[in-house]
C-alpha cells in the first residue's frame, strides 16, 4: 500500500500534517505523538522580529469549534531557528515553516533567513491571518496584492512556496489562480473564518480582539467546498484543512482534491488525532481496496 504523496518535489511519507499555530513547533505535542510518523510538521507563524500578539482572552469556545485571536505571537526568526528548527532536526518528518509579516519586506527577510536552513522542506506563507490589524490579511484578500507578494517571495525563496489562502473572500478560486500565476508551488486552505462571540452575562466580547478566527469541526463543510472549488481552478497541489478530526474527514478533503491535509484545532481536543488519522487512512484504504493514496486525490469530480 502506498501512502506517499509528492508535493512540489517534496516526498511526504503520508498526507497528514499539523496546521500552523495549533502544534507549536512540535515540541509540546512530541510528548503525545511520535513526530516521525507524521508526513509533516507545520510550525507556528514566525516573523522577522518577536511579536507580542493580542491581549487576552485570546480563545473562546463556540458550538463545535472555537475562535482564536492569538495575534501571531512569536519569538522571531532568530530564536525560531536556534531553538525550534534545531529541535526538529532530530525528526524524520518534513518541516514546513509558516511565515508571517506586516509588510512584504518582513516576509522577504524571514524567507531569506530560511534559505540556508537545511531542514526546511517548504515555506507556507500566511497572508490570511484575520487577527492582525496591519498588513497580513490584506495580501490575502486582494488578488493583485497576493500576486505581487507571491512573485516577490518566489524570487528569493530557496524552498518550494505554499500560499495559505483565506476563506474570508468572495471567490477563493480567484486568489488561488493569482497565487498559481505568480509561481506558487502549492496552496493551503483554509485559514480560519472571521467570527465573533458575545458574552451575554458580562455584555462584552468574548475575545479581547472582538473578532477572531473560527476553526474546528464547525467549519469543515466550508473548507471541503473551498478545496473542491480550488482543485477545479488550479493545477498546483492543495493542502486541505479546516475542522479535520478523523481519518474520514481527511479522506473527504483528499477526495475533494487535497494532496495532503492538516489537523488544527482538533489537536487540542485529541492530542493523538494526527496519528489516529495516519492509521485510519490506512484502514480505509485496506477496506476500500485502494493501493495508492494518489488514486484518491481529487477522485470526486
Amino acid at each position, binding site marked *: 500500500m502506498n501512502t506517499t504523496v509528492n508535493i512540489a518535489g517534496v516526498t511526504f511519507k503520508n498526507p497528514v500534517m499539523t496546521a500552523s*499555530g*495549533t502544534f507549536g513547533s512540535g515540541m509540546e505535542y512530541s*510528548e503525545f505523538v511520535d513526530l516521525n510518523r507524521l508526513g509533516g510538521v507545520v510550525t*507556528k507563524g514566525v516573523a522577522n522580529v518577536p511579536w507580542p500578539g493580542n491581549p*487576552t*482572552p485570546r480563545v473562546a469556545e463556540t458550538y463545535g469549534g472555537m475562535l482564536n485571536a492569538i495575534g501571531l505571537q512569536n519569538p522571531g526568526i532568530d530564536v525560531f531557528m536556534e531553538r525550534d528548527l534545531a529541535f526538529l532536526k532530530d525528526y524524520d518528518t518534513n518541516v514546513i515553516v509558516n511565515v508571517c509579516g506586516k509588510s512584504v519586506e518582513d516576509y522577504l527577510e524571514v524567507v531569506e533567513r530560511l534559505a540556508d536552513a537545511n531542514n526546511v522542506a517548504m515555506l507556507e506563507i500566511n497572508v490570511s491571518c484575520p487577527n492582525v490589524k496591519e498588513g497580513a490579511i490584506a495580501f490575502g484578500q486582494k488578488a493583485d496584492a497576493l500576486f505581487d507578494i507571491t512573485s516577490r517571495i518566489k524570487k528569493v525563496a530557496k524552498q518550494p512556496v505554499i500560499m495559505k489562502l483565506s476563506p474570508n473572500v468572495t471567490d477563493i478560486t480567484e486568489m488561488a489562480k493569482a497565487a498559481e500565476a505568480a509561481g506558487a508551488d502549492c496552496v493551503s486552505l483554509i485559514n480560519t473564518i472571521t467570527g465573533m462571540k458575545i458574552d451575554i452575562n458580562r455584555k462584552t466580547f468574548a475575545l479581547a480582539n472582538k473578532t477572531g478566527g473560527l476553526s474546528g*469541526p464547525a467549519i469543515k463543510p466550508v473548507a471541503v467546498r473551498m478545496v473542491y472549488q480550488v482543485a477545479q481552478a488550479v493545477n498546483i497541489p492543495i493542502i486541505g484543512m479546516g475542522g479535520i478530526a478523523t481519518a474520514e474527514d481527511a479522506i473527504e478533503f483528499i477526495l475533494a482534491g487535497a494532496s495532503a491535509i492538516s489537523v488544527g484545532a482538533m489537536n487540542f481536543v485529541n492530542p493523538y488525532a494526527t496519528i489516529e488519522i495516519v492509521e485510519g487512512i490506512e484502514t480505509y484504504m485496506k477496506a476500500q481496496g485502494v493501493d495508492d493514496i494518489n488514486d484518491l486525490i481529487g477522485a470526486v469530480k
Partner: protein
Amino acid sequence: MAKQKVIAKVARQEQIAAGIFDMWIETALAQDAKPGQFISVYPKDKSTLLPRPISICEVNEDKTMLRIVYRVAGKGTAEFSAYTAGDDIAILGTLGNGFPLDAAKGKRVFLMGGGIGIPPMLELAKQLKKQYDVESRIVVGYRDNQTFLADDLAKYGSVYIASEDGSVGSKGNVMNAIEENNLSADIIMACGPMPMLRAIKQYAEANNMTAYISLEERMACGVGACLGCVVKTKEVDHHSHVHNARICTDGPVYDAKEVEI
C-alpha cells in the same frame, strides 16, 4: 510521567455546597500530581470541544486517585456534575508547574484561597505539613456560610474564614480576615479571583513578602502549543521572547512580582 490524555473512572461524586461538586477520579495520573497543578476535563458533548481546566484538590494516600472540587459554571461543568461512580471521564494531565513547596520551608506561611480557588489549597496544606512540617495559616474567602472544604483544611493548619455576606467569620474577603485576626506570615501562596490576587500582590509588595499566586485564563490546548492562555510578565519570558508567559505550562503559579495582573 509524561502528559497524557486518558479515559479515567469516576470513583465517587457528591455535591458539597450549592453548585459545588466534589469528585474523586481513579487514574494513574495521580502518581506524580503536585499541589497547584491541574488537569483538563473533556466534556463528552461534541458541541463543547475544549477541555476544562480544573485544579487538583487532593491526591489519595496510595496515589491512585485525584480529587477535584468545582463550581458548575456552564455547559461543561454541568455535564461533569451529572457523572456518577463508574462513569468514564476523559482527562488530560498533569498540567502546570504547581506551588514551590520548598520556598515555604521553615517559614510562616499564608495559604489564601477565594471561592473556587480554595480547592488547590488542600493538597498544598497537606504536603506542606507532611514534607516540611509547616502548619499553614489558611485564610479562605466564601460567598456565604457554605464553607466547603474548611473542615478538610483544618487538618493541616489553622483556618480563618471570611464571607462576603458576613454570615461566617470576617465580613468581606481574605484581606479582611487577615486584618481582623491580626495575622502575619513570611510567605503567601494563593489562588482565587483576579481582584483577590491583585490585592495579595499589593499586600505582598507593601510588606516585602514573596507571594506565589495561581492564575486563570481561557485555555485551548493546555499544553503550551496554542499561546491562548498568556499572562503579561515583567521580564521577557524565556520561551516566548516577549512579555508573555503561558499559564498552562509556565504557570499557573507565578511569583506575584513577575506578572502584571
